[in-house]
């Protein structure tokens, strides 16, 4: 009896040990999961792109699972900040190019030696580069600002819908004519201050020289400089001239402003080139032949040539705390693989960072203008503005509309914030 018990006990222990060993071995082999944070993977227009990236990557890396976690866009950087502070969470993260990426570079891994083979094919690296010139994210889109307009409303106001303004004076005349016809010239949502962001960045793109743009980035070109102050003044003047509907300060840019444009309640809107609030979206609501696009003329200055303001849009970075650095870098690169980028362009209408994507079959007239302008763009000023200045500009732009401040006071305050942010 004793012997039987002993045998049973030993057998049970052996079986348990075997099961545990097999379980541990299986789980160790199964599975490296790479977690990706973004704000786009659940969007129906981008789902095919993400499905393609996941399928291709997992096929090429057996035993690796890619897990997308879509975060709400308006809280994205708060959540990312918490993850970074805790040094745990995603392996790969989506970030906006420019200040949003650059201010978080200490939390991202340097990718120079890993993306060398992509450099020639993919565009938009500058917006994801650190002060040392190294690259910290792989761009997947080109983003920019363009004015989209409703040709039907132009016709109703007696305007030639194929003639777009080349100077601020011409734009002024168009708005005056639209206003006379009872049409609001521009859709504007400035509840969060984004309307003001788009305005100054689009207006500055062709007004500043390359040297002035560089001086802005370093903080040497002040808000109170004649060039920038003229733009701030125009922000006020355009409101006084009745370019916008009432209630801009309580209208959200995403998406109340654009929905009002899509309902033909106003004739123009400053939109984006990629992903959202762009040609593909407006084409769906207004019909492609009714959507036009042009570059916002400079308030002052410029060389007479109108370049589309554009830059690297969004890109994927690898977090320093990811335990799977090499795999994560591979995954970041796979977001810019040409077959996936092709899907991104076709399903979401995103302007891809990958220059090898075939865009020749696109039929939308406004998309053709956008795609035709990519080879010679102007810098996006707001990409090189610190977050502190941006937040202050949001507040000042609203107070300029309510009349609580003046242009002089606003630029003086913005100078202070700029000096603080850029330590001048």
């Amino acid at each position, binding site marked *: 009896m004793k012997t039987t018990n002993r045998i049973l006990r030993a057998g049970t222990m052996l079986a348990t040990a075997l099961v545990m060993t097999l379980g541990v071995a299986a789980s160790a082999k199964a599975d490296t999961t790479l977690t990706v944070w973004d704000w786009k993977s659940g969007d129906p227009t981008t789902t095919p792109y993400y499905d393609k990236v996941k399928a291709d990557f997992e096929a090429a890396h057996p035993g690796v699972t890619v897990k997308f976690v879509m975060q709400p866009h308006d809280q994205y950087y*708060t959540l990312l900040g918490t993850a970074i502070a805790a040094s745990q969470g995603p392996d790969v993260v989506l970030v906006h190019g420019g200040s949003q990426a650059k201010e978080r570079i200490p939390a991202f891994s340097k990718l120079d030696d890993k993306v060398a083979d992509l450099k020639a094919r993919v565009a938009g690296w500058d917006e994801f580069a650190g002060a040392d010139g190294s690259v910290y994210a792989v761009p997947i889109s080109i983003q920019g600002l363009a004015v989209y307009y409703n040709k039907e409303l132009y016709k109703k106001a007696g305007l030639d819908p194929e003639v777009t303004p080349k100077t601020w004076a011409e734009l002024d005349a168009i708005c005056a004519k639209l206003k006379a016809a009872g049409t609001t010239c521009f859709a504007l949502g400035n*509840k*969060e201050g984004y309307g003001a962001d788009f305005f100054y960045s689009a207006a500055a793109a062709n007004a500043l020289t390359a040297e002035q743009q560089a001086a802005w980035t370093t903080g040497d070109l002040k808000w109170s400089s004649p060039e920038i102050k003229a733009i701030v003044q125009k922000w006020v003047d355009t409101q006084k001239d009745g370019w916008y509907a009432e*209630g801009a*300060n309580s*209208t959200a840019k995403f998406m109340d402003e654009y929905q009002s444009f899509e309902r033909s309640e106003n004739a123009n809107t400053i939109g984006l080139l990629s992903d959202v609030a762009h040609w593909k979206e407006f084409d769906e609501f207004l019909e492609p032949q009714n959507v036009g696009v042009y570059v916002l003329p400079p308030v002052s200055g410029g060389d007479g040539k109108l370049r589309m303001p554009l830059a690297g849009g969004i890109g994927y970075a690898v977090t320093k705390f990811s335990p799977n650095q090499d795999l994560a870098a591979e995954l970041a690169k796979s977001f810019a693989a040409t077959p996936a980028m092709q899907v991104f362009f076709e399903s979401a209408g995103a302007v891809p960072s990958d220059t090898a994507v075939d865009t020749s079959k696109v039929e939308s007239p406004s998309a053709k203008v956008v795609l035709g302008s990519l080879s010679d763009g102007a810098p996006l000023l707001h990409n090189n503005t610190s*977050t502190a200045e941006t937040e202050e500009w949001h507040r000042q732009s609203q107070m300029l509309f309510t009349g609580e401040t003046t242009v002089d006071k606003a630029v003086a305050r913005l100078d202070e914030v700029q000096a603080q942010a850029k330590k001048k």
Partner: protein
Amino acid sequence: MTETVIAKDSKSAATPRRKSGGHNAERLAYLFVLPALALVVVFRIIPLIWGLGYSFTDYDGMSQPRFVGFDNYIGIAHDPVFLDSLVNMLILLATLPIWIGLPLVLAILIHQGVPGGKIFRAVYFFPAVLSSVIVGAIFNVLLRYDGSFNLFLKAMGFSAVDWLGNSSTALFSLIAVQLWSTFGMSLLIFIAGLSTVSSEMLEAAKLDGAKLLQMWWHIVIPSIRPIIEFAAVVTTIGMLTSMFGLIYVLTAGGPGTSTILPEFLIWLEQGKMNRPGYASAISMVLFLMMAGLAAIQIRIMSRNADI
């Protein structure tokens, strides 16, 4: 002699038993309190101490924190956005009498047995169970420039008002929405308090010819004064810590700084500006202000209790 010894023995035997039972009960009490105490220590006290530590650093959430002494506190004292948020907070606090008076009057009316009192009680309490984001979304539709309120105003021949986009109306709109969504809780507290008012005293007053308002003023309100004071403390803390959701959804702090309260500014600095160190310093200042306010209110309550 023998009896005395027995008595002594029985006393000496009984005392340690009682003491041991007392100790056990005491230990058991500590055991029951322990989970709550652990939660308070882990989720309140330790983060508070960490926050205090961070408030003396330039921590940006990514790099190693560097000790900067009182720089953050000096920065706060000169930060126009923070100073504006304090002014907004004072305006908000100045409306406290409405936050107490409105539910108190309605509670008295319901307690007096107005027709449909039970329905009113349910209706008034209903918004209190909604999350602030849902309340914000509802009022976003109602208060926007082309929203229902303005359509109604226009139909009545008045001009539309940009309730949330105008600095002179945005904060008051927020306060009104928050009041609407939370006063049901104070109402319930007051109704519960009113049920403790002596009906004999009210009857006696009525027989003596006291009018309704006199009865309210001289009997009802003094009787429930501790309840009113309790509601005032809870409401004040709620006003300073529970407005974030509404601000976020309805105004995003604007226009300008007109609806930024310290709690929203803490989020802005931490979440958007990547300055947890600076945000911690604002948190500490807000904590001290709230602790001071609560201490004053509790002191008043204790003094009245002594009376």
